[in-house]
C-alpha cells in the first residue's frame, strides 16, 4: 500500500466533490495549456508564412495606418492609391530583383449576390510573390481570365473553364485556374491581371501597393533608404515589421488570455483548498485514529498535501488531454475571434509545454494543500477522536 493508494482512496470516497474539483483543475489547466500552445504555434506559423511570401518589403501610400497596411495581405481595401510615378521610380532602384505592383479592390458579383475582393497583380510575377502556390488549371493569360482562390471557387462551385460576371460593364471572365487551398487569406480572393482591373475601375495607373524583393536581404536597409530619397509620400513596411506588429496584437491577446487562465486557476485552487478543508473537517476522527496508531504531525501533513497533489495532478493531466482532444475546436474559436491568423495549424501539442503545465498543476495542488494540511497536522489527537 502506497501513499498514492491512500490518497486515491480518499479521493474515491468523495466521488462527486472530487470530480467537481477535478473538473475545475482540468478546465483551468486546459485553458492555460491551450493559450500557451496557441501562442507558440501562432508565432511559428506567422513566421513561416511571411517567410514564404517571397517578398521582403512592401510600399504603400503614406499616412496609411500601420495596422491597415499590414492588412493589405489580408485583402483590405486601402483608401488611398500610390502616386502614379512611384512604380517607375521603384523599378529603377538598384539591387532589387523583384518589383511587382498590386491593386486591391472589390467588385460586386450579381449572380452570387456578393462582393468579391479582387487582387490585380502582374501574372508574370505570381510565383515570385507566392512561391508556394499550386494551381489547378493555369494562371490567367488572356486579358479577361481570372484565378480563383479555393474558398471563392468552393462558394461559387467554380471549375476551370467556367465563366463569372462582374457588374461593371458586365464583363464576363473565364476561370483559367483555381488556386489549391493555401489555408491563408489568399484562398478568399479573385486574382486577375492588374491592367484589366485598372481598366475596369477606370484608373489606368492605380496601384495600392508594391511588393519588392532585394537581391541581398542584408542590404534591405540601404535599399529602403534609397527609395525614401527618391519617392515621397510612401511608407515602406518590411516583413519583419509586419510580423512584429501582428505579434504585438497577438501578445496583447495572449496577456488577456493568460490573465483569464490565472483567474480560472486561482478559482480552481480555492476549490482544492475548500475540498481539502472539508475533508479534514469530516475525517477529524480518522485523523485522530491515525495519530493514535503512530502517525506524526508531519505524516498527517504529507497525507493531506499528497492528496491535494494527486488530485491536481490528475486534473492537470486530464486538462492537457482535453485540450489536445479539443484543439481543432479551440483552433476554430481562435480563428474566429483573432484579427489576423496565419494558415497552418496554430494550436499544436508541445511535449515540453505539456510537461511544464503538468508540473504547474502539481505545484497548484501542493500550494493549495498547504493550509488544509497544516490545519490537519495541528489537530490534537484527543479532540479529534472526541473522547
Amino acid at each position: 500500500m502506497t501513499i498514492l493508494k491512500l490518497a486515491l482512496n480518499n479521493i474515491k470516497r468523495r466521488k462527486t466533490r472530487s470530480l467537481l474539483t477535478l473538473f475545475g483543475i482540468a478546465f483551468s489547466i486546459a485553458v492555460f495549456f491551450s493559450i500557451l500552445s496557441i501562442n507558440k504555434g501562432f508565432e511559428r506559423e506567422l513566421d513561416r508564412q511571411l517567410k514564404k511570401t517571397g517578398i521582403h518589403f512592401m510600399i504603400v501610400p503614406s499616412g496609411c495606418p500601420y495596422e491597415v497596411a499590414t492588412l493589405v495581405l489580408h485583402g483590405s481595401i486601402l483608401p488611398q492609391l500610390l502616386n502614379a510615378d512611384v512604380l517607375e521610380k521603384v523599378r529603377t532602384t538598384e539591387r532589387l530583383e523583384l518589383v511587382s505592383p498590386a491593386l486591391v479592390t472589390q467588385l460586386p458579383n450579381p449572380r452570387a449576390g456578393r462582393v468579391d475582393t479582387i487582387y490585380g497583380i502582374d501574372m508574370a510575377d505570381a510565383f515570385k510573390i507566392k512561391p508556394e502556390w499550386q494551381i489547378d488549371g493555369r494562371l490567367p493569360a488572356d486579358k479577361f481570365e481570372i484565378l480563383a482562390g479555393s474558398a471563392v471557387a468552393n462558394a461559387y462551385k467554380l471549375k476551370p473553364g467556367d465563366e463569372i460576371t462582374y457588374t461593371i460593364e458586365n464583363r464576363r471572365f473565364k476561370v483559367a485556374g483555381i488556386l489549391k487551398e493555401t489555408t491563408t487569406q489568399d484562398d478568399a480572393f479573385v486574382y486577375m491581371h492588374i491592367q484589366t482591373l485598372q481598366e475596369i475601375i477606370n484608373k489606368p495607373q492605380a496601384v495600392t501597393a508594391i511588393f519588392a524583393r532585394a537581391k541581398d536581404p542584408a542590404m534591405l536597409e540601404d535599399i529602403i533608404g534609397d527609395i525614401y530619397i527618391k519617392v515621397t509620400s510612401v511608407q515602406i513596411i518590411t516583413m519583419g515589421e509586419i510580423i512584429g506588429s501582428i505579434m504585438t496584437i497577438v501578445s496583447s491577446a495572449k496577456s488577456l488570455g493568460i490573465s483569464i487562465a490565472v483567474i480560472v486557476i486561482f478559482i480552481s485552487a480555492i476549490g482544492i483548498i475548500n475540498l481539502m478543508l472539508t475533508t479534514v473537517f469530516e475525517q477529524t476522527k480518522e485523523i485522530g485514529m491515525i495519530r493514535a496508531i503512530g502517525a506524526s504531525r508531519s505524516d498527517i501533513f504529507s497525507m493531506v498535501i499528497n492528496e491535494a497533489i494527486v488530485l491536481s495532478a490528475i486534473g492537470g493531466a486530464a486538462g492537457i488531454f482535453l485540450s489536445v482532444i479539443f484543439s481543432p475546436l479551440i483552433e476554430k474559436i481562435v480563428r474566429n475571434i483573432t484579427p489576423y491568423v496565419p494558415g497552418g495549424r496554430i494550436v499544436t501539442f508541445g511535449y515540453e509545454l505539456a510537461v511544464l503545465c503538468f508540473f504547474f498543476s502539481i505545484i497548484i495542488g501542493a500550494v493549495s494543500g498547504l493550509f488544509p494540511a497544516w490545519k490537519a497536522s495541528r489537530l490534537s489527537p484527543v479532540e479529534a477522536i472526541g473522547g
Partner: protein
Amino acid sequence: MLPVIALEGVEKIYRRGSEEIHALKDVNITFQEGEFISIVGQSGSGKTTLLNIMGCLDRPTRGTVKIDGIEVSTMNEKEISRIRREKIGFIFQQFYLIPGLTAAENVALPLKFSRKPIDKKYILSLLDTVGLDMRAKHTPDQLSGGEMQRVAIARAIANHPHVILADEPTGTLDTKNSMIIFELLKSLNSRGLTIILVTHNVAFAEKTGRVISISDGQMNSTRLDSKHITGSI
C-alpha cells in the same frame, strides 16, 4: 522490573471558556508487564481521559507519565508519536477503520507509519490471530461490527506494542461479538501482552486480573465494586 506504565500525581484539567473541569485528580498507578486490567466507572468519570494520557494521546496538566520507565510528559510531539507507534496499541469503541481500504491494508497502516516493510504473510498472520484471514481483501463495508473490531485489534498489535489500550471496545457490539472480542483480548494477554480495558461490562471486568474503579476523576479502589459499573450489557 520496570512497570509498563506508571502514573504519578497525574491531574487533568480541561478548560471550557472560564469553566474548569477536573477530569482526573491525583492519579497514582502502575501497570506491570503481562497484566490484564479493567477500568470501570460511570460515564464522564474520566476513564477515557485516563486512557488517553496513558496512551500519550494527551498530556496531563500535572504529574508524570512513564512508559517502560521513560518519562514522556516532557517529550516533544515527534518523540511522543514514536512512543505511540512503538509501544502502544489502541482499540476504540468506533473501530475507525478506513473505508475503501481492505482489512489487510487497514491492518498494515501502523507499519506504514513506522516505515517498516509490509510483509503480506505477516499481515495475514495478524488477521489469522483474530480469525479473519479469509476476509483480508474485504473492505469495512463488507464486514460486521464485530469483524471490524477484530480487524482493529489486528491493527493494534501490528507493531508489536507493549500495551493495548482498549476504550469500551465492545460498547456498540452485541453479546456474542462482545464475547469474541473479550476472549481475543484474553488470549493476547495470555501471550504476555499487557492489556488495559475500559468497560461497562461487569462480567468482563470480573474476569480480568485487576479492576480499577474511577469516579469523578479519582481512583477509588483496585477491587471490583459493582456500584461503579453501569450500563453493562
